[in-house]
């Protein structure tokens, strides 16, 4: 029986910006707490550097991207690296749906930012589950 493919999670690398931090905190929650056996986090920097292991993982597995802003660097970089983006999520869009969760802070998010990251992580979890339900060939 073939082993289910992992889902690659690629968050924004916006260092020094609250929305970038939200994307990374959400990615950590998914890959370390919520779905550690079915996901793998690849930092954007490894793709920019052309890291062979990261590129190989991306070539063999579907990806979910979490962009911080409209530049959509994570999504663009995954595509430029030959990866298949199966779901694009954006912190800005999530914030628009949860206006009360205004993220502030960079190194340490405020309560709103932490809650927003958690809500976003749940959206990523759902996307991972949906890919897994499509079967091992797809996820």
């Amino acid at each position, binding site marked *: 029986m073939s082993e289910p493919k992992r889902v690659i999670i690629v968050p924004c690398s916006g260092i020094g*910006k*609250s*929305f970038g931090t939200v994307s990374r905190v959400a990615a950590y929650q998914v890959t370390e707490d919520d779905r550690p056996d079915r996901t793998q986090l690849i930092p954007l920097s490894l793709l920019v550097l052309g890291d062979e292991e990261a590129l190989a993982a991306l070539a063999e597995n579907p990806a979910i991207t979490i962009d*911080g*802003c*409209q530049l959509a660097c994570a999504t663009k970089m995954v595509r430029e690296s030959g990866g298949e983006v199966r779901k694009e999520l954006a*912190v*800005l869009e999530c*914030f*628009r749906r949860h*206006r009360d969760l205004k993220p502030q802070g960079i190194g340490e998010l405020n309560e709103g930012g932490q809650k927003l990251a958690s809500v976003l992580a749940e959206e990523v979890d759902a996307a991972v589950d949906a890919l897994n339900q499509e079967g091992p060939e797809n996820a």
Partner: protein
Amino acid sequence: MTDYLETQVDKFTFKVPTDRYYNSFGVWAKAEGNHIRIGLSDYLQQSSGDIAFADVRPTGTILAVGDEASDIETIKVDISIPSPLAGKIVRVNPLMETEPETINQDPYGEGWLCEIEPLDWESDLKNLMDPDAYFAHMKQQAEEEVNKNE
């Protein structure tokens, strides 16, 4: 076809169309028939960041010069947009409710905020900057911002 003044500061390019007037905050005003359409300059939208919400004051609101015409919430800041003229808001861009990011994508076109029936446009115009004056003002602001971050 609209002509633009254009400058590059650091890695950013800023455009200023020559067919409208500006206040020092970076709000443009352009006559559209009997009304004046207002919006954010390219520099103001770029320096403010991705726009999450644009709460434009509702139709019928009476504004004095400098009154808040809209509140803009971006990923970086919350900003109050001062009206460049006195008058009554007669039309609000419906895209501000559903797609406020249009301000970032097309600040001088589809991303306008609202239209105002002016009280005394000729008088207010005297206190606004023409494109050349705003271009110089904006360029100085942008260069100061870059120097501050170096």
